[in-house]
């Protein structure tokens, strides 16, 4: 850089990204956000100030060196940018699309104090897509560590953990209950937000690192966690199964035909390709008037999928206001653009059925915001006498998940009182050698948080297995009077 950039000298406007027209895209499953072109990425890269104290990095759950990769984009060194991201994040094409950047890196960005923040997510995606197009992969020299690691669940937590353990030289096998790997990236997030080709490319990268994927395997029931350690020869196990047990509201009428969880709708549509029924055998309920309860990312996905499946109108029913809506800003914006009607401060009381047991409407009540609750958000309070009916023939619950019971039923792992796996700060569970992370520990969270947990568990698994981090020298100059240079520790390998 010849001259130091300041907020005044950089391009003032955030470079817009091309998107499919809302009316057109609401009828197809092609990606909404077209991504930056090279010229657009170069332009946006000019907006980074390369702060002395890069606060954006602190905002990233996996600590990507953001100014470094943006600087390389600016120098048209896209491969270098990919390598810079790849040091901490294996899946830039995924994270650039699904991270809630506005509350992470972009939320911290200094430019954001006076202008719109640097579009870090779009830049990351640009680099990730370029890598897929060019077939780049970060294949470090891997020295076999003689350790076997089993990973339960092939979602973001499992993938991130698998990548780190494979790079550390472990023989890694990932077990997945579905017939295809990817977890929530595959069954949950729709193609118009995260195309399958992106997931395939990232999984291919893991395979190149030597990671093996074993689908159709329900760990706990086909074999237990204890058997993995005791009988199958795994030296360490990571559990990243996700929360995976959708919450239902428990209001009258919630077993009517036409009421389903967002997970079911999305899985049928995305993984099972029910949107192409009858070419694919899985059917999907097609509502004309769809009400989705909840306003998180999953709710937005369910609404936008319903539109694309041909719903005439889709209504979001959320008991708090727009300010408390937990979805990624871009998703809410896209849903609005595509014609979703938002009924903020509205809570369902009862789902109404016709004489055939199908949904014909939903009785709701208007809410107002009261005192903050335990989560710090304003508690919604019903407004007396405000009951009203919404016409709908399908109701989708996207109100979060409870802990999936399978691992708890089949192991002696200590669980917390809600059924989630209990871990210490190092993500170690109550069983030696068994670590856990992601939604099955924290409850429902984001893809990048799950990846962060997978990587954190990997660091601690390496320590548990006695695998040194590359480049990390033992700190003390002398141990028992032996000089660092004279030490000749050999790793103890299992027989």
């Amino acid at each position, binding site marked *: 850089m010849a001259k130091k950039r300041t907020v005044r000298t950089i391009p003032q406007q955030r470079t817009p990204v091309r998107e499919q027209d809302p009316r057109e895209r609401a009828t197809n499953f092609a990606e909404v956000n077209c991504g930056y072109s090279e010229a657009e990425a170069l332009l946006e890269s000019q907006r980074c100030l390369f702060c002395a104290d890069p606060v954006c990095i602190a905002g990233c759950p996996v600590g990507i060196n953001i100014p470094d990769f943006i600087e390389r984009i600016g120098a048209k060194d896209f491969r270098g940018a990919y390598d810079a991201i790849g040091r901490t994040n294996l899946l830039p094409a995924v994270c650039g699309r699904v991270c809630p950047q506005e509350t992470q890196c972009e939320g911290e960005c200094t430019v954001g104090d006076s202008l719109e923040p640097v579009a870090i997510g779009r830049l990351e995606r640009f680099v990730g897509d370029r890598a897929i197009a060019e077939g780049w992969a970060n294949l470090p020299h891997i020295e076999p560590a003689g350790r076997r690691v089993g990973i339960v669940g092939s979602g973001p937590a499992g993938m991130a953990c698998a990548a780190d353990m494979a790079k550390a030289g472990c023989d890694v096998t990932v077990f997945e209950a*579905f*017939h295809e790997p990817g977890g929530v990236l595959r069954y949950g997030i729709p193609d118009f937000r995260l195309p399958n080709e992106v997931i395939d490319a990232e999984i291919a990268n893991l395979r190149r690192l030597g990671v093996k994927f*074993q689908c159709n395997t329900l760990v706990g029931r*086909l074999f237990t966690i204890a058997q993995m350690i005791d009988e*199958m*020869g795994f030296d360490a196990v990571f559990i990243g199964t996700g929360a*995976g047990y959708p919450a239902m509201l428990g209001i009258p009428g919630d077993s009517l035909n036409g009421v*389903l969880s967002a997970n079911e709708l999305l899985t049928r549509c995305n993984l099972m390709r029910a949107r192409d029924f*009858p070419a694919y055998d*899985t059917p999907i309920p097609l509502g004309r008037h769809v009400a989705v309860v909840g306003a998180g990312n999953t709710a937005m996905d369910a609404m936008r999928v319903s539109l694309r499946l041909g719903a005439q109108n889709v209504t979001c029913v959320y008991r708090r206001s727009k300010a408390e809506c937990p979805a990624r800003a871009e998703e809410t914006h896209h849903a609005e653009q595509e014609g979703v009607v938002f009924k903020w401060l509205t809570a369902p009381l009862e789902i109404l059925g016709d004489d055939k047991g199908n949904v014909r409407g939903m009785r709701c009540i208007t809410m107002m915001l009261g005192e903050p609750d335990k989560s710090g958000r304003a508690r919604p309070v019903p407004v007396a006498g405000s009951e009203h009916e919404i016409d709908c023939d399908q109701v989708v619950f996207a109100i979060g998940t409870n802990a999936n019971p399978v691992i708890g039923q089949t192991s002696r792992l200590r669980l917390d009182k809600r059924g989630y796996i209990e871990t210490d700060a190092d993500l170690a569970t109550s069983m030696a050698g068994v670590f856990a992370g992601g939604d099955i520990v924290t409850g429902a969270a984001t893809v990048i948080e799950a990846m962060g947990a997978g990587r954190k568990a990997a660091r601690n698994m390496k320590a548990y297995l006695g695998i040194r981090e590359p480049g990390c020298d033992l700190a003390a100059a002398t141990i028992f009077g032996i000089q660092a240079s004279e030490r000749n520790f050999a790793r103890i390998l299992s027989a």
Partner: protein
Amino acid sequence: MLATMNDIQEGYGFEIVRRQDFSDVTYLLEVRHPLMAKAARPGQFVIVMSHENGERIPLTIADFDRAAGTVTLVVQAVGKTTREMQQTCQAGAHLHALVGPMGIPTHIGDARKVVCVGGGLGVAPIYPQARAFKEDGAYVIGILGFRNKDLVFWEDKFRACCDEVILCTDDGSAGMKGFVSDGIKQAIAAHSDIDEVIAIGPPVMMKACAETTRPHGIKTMVSLNPIMVDGTGMCGGCRVKLGDQVKFACVDGPDFDGHLVDFDDMTRRLRRYKEEETAAMTRWSETCRMESPQTTL
């Protein structure tokens, strides 16, 4: 019975090693899966996808052979998927996906005298339970119900592991004329000390069994097979009502107390894809007439 990595399926698909037809709608598939054969216990089920574009269907495990490394499924051709499988799933063919064993195994408890009731296709999955109770030293009464004598299967297997077998057919063409609930009445009349009744079959049959035992206060367990996608608790499609509780059949079941299950709710929910199922069936039957049936997958 150690689990080892060598047991894990390599390569593509799951091989069908034996196929047997019980009637023109009911067929048996024995599939190679050594690890599942080791893990399977009575009462559990699997999810099958016959081909890449197929749907995931739950099937209760009818038998498992740990020495041979196989699990046995009995299928009734009722819809598009199961009729297509009837054509394509021959010995030597492969299933695209097979995952399990799923669900909580049946509790083979302290019951000393049990009645194992199977209706139609339900005769197959009740078999491993009858055998397990017998091995556990219980007195086992098997009650098998079919529409007519042409549909009867596995009578010999039940005779080998039950102390008594009551065969019922709707038209009286084999065994006694009547429903399995009539068989239960007969068993209750002959034995005042029945500890438990286990019933598997169509919802209407399980409901009838539960109503038959209710006045006698006999514990009655039923195995539910609602519509599922993943079978791991993730989608909630299989939720059933038990009194005022909602349970997921895939991970909280499939066995539940028959006196608590809301069978009417379950029956209604089983019909929710009726239209799509009929459309798929019609479309498939039409294409079938034009193309010769596939023999392998």
